[in-house]
């Protein structure tokens, strides 16, 4: 709710993607150049392989007052700056899926011409979608491995939790909701207390109790190493894709 809908102009080649924008009261168009003429802060939200073409198209209309923010995976600031007029204020961001419920995790990095003002503006806007932090560009692929893809790891874990409960006799619908709430609650405690997760974990473990027995099973399955492997694999893949 930081920007009135009437101040937002969305452009897409077909109406297919524009309906949602219209429903929230935003203006829409099929002309990318119109967006450049009409706005200052421009978000590029195309698929990575489409982006070079779009950049070529809008390049003539890009001026020193514009702030261009790309969220295309794997397209570096260097590439963006190369395809736009010299001195254009460019930033690059990487969101994750839960932005749609205002619980996202977003990182962004600034290009050489983007200053503190632009960074502050972007951070302010994006914070309405969740956690937003400025990072060096090299962290963006790590963010993908950790949080972009990470959301899927959590879904997998939640599904497995629920399945365990189903095995023990609980209906799957209820088990799923409780699993999700458990993850939500644990995450909320981490964020709000700022305590180390190892300490929070220890707080839950009464001596000889249920939790420590269960944790032993997780350790036997080398869960930690597997999760580290996952983050590493996704990060490496993001790097490889970027090179293509």
């Amino acid at each position, binding site marked *: 709710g930081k920007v009135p809908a009437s101040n937002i102009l969305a452009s897409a080649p077909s109406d297919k993607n524009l309906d949602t924008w219209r429903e929230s009261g935003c203006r829409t168009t099929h002309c990318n150049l119109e967006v450049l003429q009409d706005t200052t802060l421009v978000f590029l939200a195309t698929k990575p392989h489409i982006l070079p073409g779009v950049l070529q198209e809008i390049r003539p209309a890009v001026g020193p007052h514009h702030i261009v923010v790309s969220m295309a995976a794997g397209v570096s600031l260097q590439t963006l700056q190369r395809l736009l007029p010299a001195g254009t204020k460019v930033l690059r961001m990487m969101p994750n899926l839960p932005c749609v419920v205002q619980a996202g995790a977003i990182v962004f990095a600034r290009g050489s011409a983007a200053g503190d003002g632009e960074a502050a503006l972007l951070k302010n806007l994006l914070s309405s979608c969740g956690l937003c932090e400025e990072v060096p560009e090299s962290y963006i692929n790590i963010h993908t491995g950790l949080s972009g893809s990470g959301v899927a790891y959590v879904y997998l874990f939640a599904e497995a939790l629920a399945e365990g409960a189903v095995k023990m006799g609980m209906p799957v619908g209820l088990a799923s909701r409780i699993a999700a709430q458990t993850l939500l609650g644990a995450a909320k405690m981490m964020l709000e207390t700022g305590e180390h997760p*190892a300490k929070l974990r220890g707080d839950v473990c009464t001596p000889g109790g249920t939790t420590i027995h269960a944790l*032993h099973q997780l*350790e036997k399955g080398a869960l*930690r190493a597997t999760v*580290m*492997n996952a983050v590493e694999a996704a990060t490496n893949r993001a790097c490889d894709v970027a090179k293509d």
Partner: protein
Amino acid sequence: SAGILAAHKITASSPDTDLPTVSGLRKMGVNFTVSNKDTVKSSDVLFLAVKPPIIPFILEEVGPDIEPRHIVVSCAAGVTISSIEKKLSTFCPTPKVIRCMTNTPVIVREGATVYATGTHADVEDGKLLEQLMASVGFCTEVEEDLIDAVTGLSGSGPAYAFTALDALADGGVKMGLPRRLAVRLGAQALLGAAKMLLESEQHPGQLKDNVCSPGGATIHALHFLESGGFRSLLINAVEASCIRTRELQHVADQEKISPAAIKKTLLDKVKMESPSLSSKVSLFTNKS
């Protein structure tokens, strides 16, 4: 060696005077005798430092001389307070018994000791033992039912550490360090880490994070440890040691054969197996 009790106030007793520990104790100025009965008479606090199967015999032998003032401290693994109290109650109605579990680093005054007090042992009796054992490391009171877990953790713990240190040294040697230096550095690393943890309010997980710079050497190494299930191995080890302790205690409780019948066989067997600790009753006085 911690200096809280003068050597001449300590009496040690062993039937076998040729043991290396005997000469060691004598050199320290400890009184020595071959008579358990004599030591009981001249002492207030009695440490029973024999192997668990010998405990019943020792108790039968010194039982008649136990008086209300005596505090009987047993460090025998798996021997319960109630079993000692039961044996002594035929001689003395309210025997004071304390059971303790310590570990080998008491030798360098960095031991980990826990104790549980028996039915007739007072708070002061426990505190006296705590004061004695605190001079050689950490000492605290626990409920008796936790002693098996303590065995699994800090009783056996030094062995886990020695194994880890041997392997760490191998790693160092593999990467080019001379063996002696590798051992020295490995031991110092563990010593330093343990000291940091004991002196810090922070969780070990936090201390670990503090060592791991992003993308650095340590986090790469830790990933290997996690992949190998390092944590679960340690949990398994503590669990196995604790469970085995309970099993042995259960076997000891069976006690189906009469003590006298197996006494000689056991004594000979024990003497052959471990010359340093067999058939010895060490007794400490607290006359000040």
